[in-house]
């Protein structure tokens, strides 16, 4: 694995993640109301990008599932369906880097032992989630995923 991108396999956010969040906006940013009926558009974006980045069919399916799972978690923990869910997709040399965040009603990050998070981790090469105060002090839940074109997942 050449690993030119950020490596965020640890369970606490590392510097790279924060830098990547704050640097010039990701290539593609999608903002939606935090509602389950918008999940399919995020899957469509993930699939289109992975396809064009020459991911194989299993890797495309994995990324769709991981993005869906991450955003379903953000939506279910948002304060209201009017909250905004912001997703960033960056197509990097050998991987797609996905970040997402939304305001949250729970001050704690989702358990890493839950079924959903275990699935998500098994589908990606790196997965991380944490809560941090947003600009206005409201807690914001963040998810950061990396899926490599030729990853070690399910091969």
């Amino acid at each position, binding site marked *: 694995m050449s690993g030119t991108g950020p490596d965020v396999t640890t369970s606490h956010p590392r510097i790279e993640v924060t830098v990547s969040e704050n640097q010039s906006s990701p290539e593609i940013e999608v903002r939606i109301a935090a509602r*389950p*009926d918008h*999940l*399919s558009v995020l*899957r469509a974006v993930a699939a289109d990008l992975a396809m064009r980045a020459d991911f194989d*069919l*299993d890797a495309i*399916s*994995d990324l*769709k*599932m991981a993005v*869906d*799972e991450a955003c*379903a978690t953000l*939506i*279910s923990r948002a304060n209201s369906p009017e909250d905004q869910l912001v997703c960033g997709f960056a197509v990097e040399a050998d991987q797609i880097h996905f970040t997402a965040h939304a305001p949250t009603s729970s001050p704690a990050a989702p358990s890493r032992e839950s*079924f*959903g998070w275990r*699935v998500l981790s*098994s*589908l990606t090469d790196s997965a991380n989630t944490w809560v941090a105060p947003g600009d206005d002090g409201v807690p914001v839940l963040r998810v950061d995923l990396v899926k490599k074109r030729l990853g070690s997942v*399910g091969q």
Partner: protein
Amino acid sequence: MTDNNNTSITLAVREVSPEVAVISIGGEVDMLTAPELREAVDRAIDSCRALVLDLNAVTFLGSAGLAVLVETSHEANRRGVPLRLVASSRTVCRPLEVTGLTEVLSTYGSLDEAVAAAV
């Protein structure tokens, strides 16, 4: 089945032989549509001797959908109702494999095989 098959999943329920129910599921099973699947399955399991879920027209299967399958499997075990899944597309098999559910659930390559096994 509904006309509105783009905003939700399609669910076709039928009895292929006495008390063997087949639910054919189409579309994207996610957080939005899983409750609908759950309801149809709960209703069917109440009145059948064996249940077949045909997943071949499913175009996305997320963890909310997987959870319905797992819970249905538990419920079917409790009742002694055989549960058989039809799963041959990559779209459906990949999530089942990645989560290790192919070990736990009985999956078949075709509806005929699943029905034969269910009877």
